[in-house]
């Protein structure tokens, strides 16, 4: 085993200048800007759903949309805050009110108009493009989040992964309701809630491994 003074000497010899991280809120803003760019590109490519303006007049739709967007924004800020060692763990509660509003709204819609199926019955035709939107939004945002949060790997990997994936899930769900006509409430529930569960679940399974992959190098040298 290396002696502690030797270790200190070798670490000091390796002390290359590093760039300090920007304040967490600013880094969150950068990530959200990336999310906005991705959504804008998708909008150019796939086109906004035709009845968006009309649907935004309906309070249920507008609240659900706003709540999922807000969840995304707050979860992003929380993820960047808890990725730092000296910030309180309580920041994890930041997106909870918005999350409750979002999920309860989706649930409420399902309860009140359980069988609100259009004249042509329930259509699953939207499923493939919906999935494309899901991947096109979720993948770049997840990767960017992973790389930006890499310093959390030795500190609070689980909390940071959870918040990060919640942010990605909420933004993706917002994108889905922006671009796709999902009328049947079961479908709304499925896509909104399913997206959230999908991203959080994937993060739970692969998060630690991916974190090890991008983590700063000296960390796992001795394991």
């Amino acid at each position, binding site marked *: 085993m290396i002696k502690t003074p030797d*270790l*200190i000497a070798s670490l000091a010899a390796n*002390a290359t200048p*590093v*760039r300090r991280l920007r304040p967490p809120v600013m880094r969150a803003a950068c990530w959200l800007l990336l999310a906005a760019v991705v959504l804008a590109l998708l909008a150019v490519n796939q086109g906004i759903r035709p009845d968006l303006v009309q649907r935004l007049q309906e309070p249920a739709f507008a609240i659900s949309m706003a709540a999922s967007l807000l969840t995304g924004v707050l979860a992003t800020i929380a993820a960047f805050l808890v*990725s*730092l*060692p000296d910030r309180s763990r309580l920041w994890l509660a930041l997106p909870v009110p918005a999350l409750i509003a979002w999920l309860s709204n989706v649930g409420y819609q399902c309860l009140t108009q359980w069988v609100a199926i259009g004249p042509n019955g329930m259509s699953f035709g939207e499923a493939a493009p919906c999935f494309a939107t899901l991947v096109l939004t979720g993948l770049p945002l997840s990767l960017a989040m992973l790389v930006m949060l890499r310093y959390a790997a030795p500190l609070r990997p689980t909390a940071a992964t959870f918040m990060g994936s919640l942010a990605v899930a909420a933004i993706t769900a917002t994108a889905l309701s922006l671009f796709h006509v999902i009328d049947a409430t079961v479908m709304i529930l499925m896509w909104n809630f399913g997206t959230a569960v999908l991203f959080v679940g994937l993060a739970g399974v692969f998060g630690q491994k991916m974190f090890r992959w991008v983590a700063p190098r000296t960390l796992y040298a001795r394991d």
Partner: protein
Amino acid sequence: MPHDRRGDGPPLRLVSREGGSDTHTQPSVARDIDWSILMARAQEGDRAAYHRLLQEITPYLRSLAARRHRDLGDIEDSVQDVLLTVHSIRQTYDPARPFAPWLVAIANRRFIDRLRRQGRTRDREIPLTAKHETFCEPAANLEERTDGRELEGMVNNLPPAQQKAIRLLKLKELSLKDAAAASGMSVTSLKVNTHRALKSLRKMLLDRREP
């Protein structure tokens, strides 16, 4: 059990739960500012400042680690763990904020990681003792197994040359060359005798079962 021992001393317990808020080891405000400045300079690549900082925080880390670990080796290992982590995430320190909470948060994370790893090891692994070693000897295993005695009796019934061959090659698991050197028999005759011995043993064992 270390857990129990820790539970015995209530003052220790009180201190260790709080992490860094105890007045005895909490660095003074002046020292904290000092460390802040050193870290800020280290982030800009000042090696001497970094060296001094690491040297100054090491005793402090050691006192923190001593609350969590008993073994001196563990304390030193976890101090080194913390130093490595500090090094790899030094860009997350913001000089506008106090240094000690940043350091203590990292240190506590590392100490808890080590305690968890030790707990897992204790649960799943058993150290090898002299007792485990003796059971590798064939004699010990023959005594243990009920079939062993019976087999031994049957081997005793074989002609002497076959007995010797089967003991050396099969029971002691020597190589042909070593067995030839040990017994003074040629390799060919060892092979032939082993073959015959196995054949008659098989016959004897089958006869025993069939009636």
